């Protein structure tokens, strides 16, 4: 990973496989890249219930969701929206997953980040 004008190179688009999330660490923040129906999404894999790392949670290509392995909260990886709280509870009180901004430059996935602010979130 290298820094280029406030952007970090994570990997090439061709490195990502559908249904196989990949985790990166940028300035101490975890970033999860997922490929869904050919489109790439970048989220912070931190459950908004208790901070559990959900990068190893169950990823459903069919529904585009990621399930927390600890208490089973479910999030839409495209928007970060919580669809279900822990154990199927109403997700109304759960904040969304943080969604990250990135650009694709000549097939390279570049995340917007800098030393001062860390990874730049894309609020939805």
């Amino acid at each position, binding site marked *: 990973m290298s820094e280029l004008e406030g952007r970090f190179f994570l990997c090439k688009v061709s490195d990502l496989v559908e249904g196989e999330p990949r985790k990166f660490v940028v*300035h*101490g923040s975890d970033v999860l890249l997922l490929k869904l129906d050919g489109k790439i999404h970048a989220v912070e894999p931190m459950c908004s219930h208790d*901070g559990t790392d959900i990068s190893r949670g169950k990823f459903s290509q069919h529904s585009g969701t990621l399930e927390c392995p600890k208490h089973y909260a479910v999030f839409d990886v495209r928007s970060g929206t919580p669809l279900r709280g822990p*154990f199927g*509870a109403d997700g109304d009180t*759960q904040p969304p997953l943080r969604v990250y901004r990135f650009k694709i430059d000549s097939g390279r996935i570049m995340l917007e980040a800098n030393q001062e602010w860390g990874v730049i979130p894309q609020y939805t």
Partner: protein
Amino acid sequence: MAKRGYSDNEPRIPKGWVLANVEQWPINTMHGPGPSPANWRFETYGDVKKPLSLTYDEFVNLPSITKKLDHHCIDGWSYLGHEWTGVDMDTIIQMTEPTDEVKFIHTEGERGYSSTFPVGQELLLAYKRFGKVLPRAGGYPVRLVAPGEFGYKSVKWVERVKFISDWEYDFWDEKLIAWGLPPIDPKLNPWNVDNAERKAGLRQLFIHLTEDHRREKIALYRKKLEASQ
């Protein structure tokens, strides 16, 4: 205060809550457990005539009770039928003899976690669950069980109990105030959560909590980075 959280109590779970049907006991902690304390003591202080300082062996040899109680998480799920064994707070009150002015109990755990309750509320200082000594993550040596309250009130890794005459903010009150949110009204029915106002408040709380968690994670990363350079 009316007893809540028993199997014969209706409704058994807060409105809108779901039952967690899991084999494993789900454990939430703010900080995660540190190492087991080598010289743990249970202490009472504040406005008491006889401050206590008991070893673990002395504590578990006090008169004990076993109760089946339900656990309700503020996050919207309940887990029914825990069997807890421990010392009733009334036993501690009889031993430590609070003064007549005492109206509240401030229970303190490791790392600054605490909960305040009015004297008279049912509280159990538990050291066993389903007959087995608590795991460290579950509160060993002793944890509080506050039936009818949400789980965050049940302090794990209890070290001290302070008897006080004036209400004292506890861990979550202090945190909410630091975030610019109002502290929890102790007169509010904790189960009255199925309304937009309470849900919006909870959502704000979780946003702040996640942000704190994120900051701590990045600070730890930077500290490790500096140490390696």
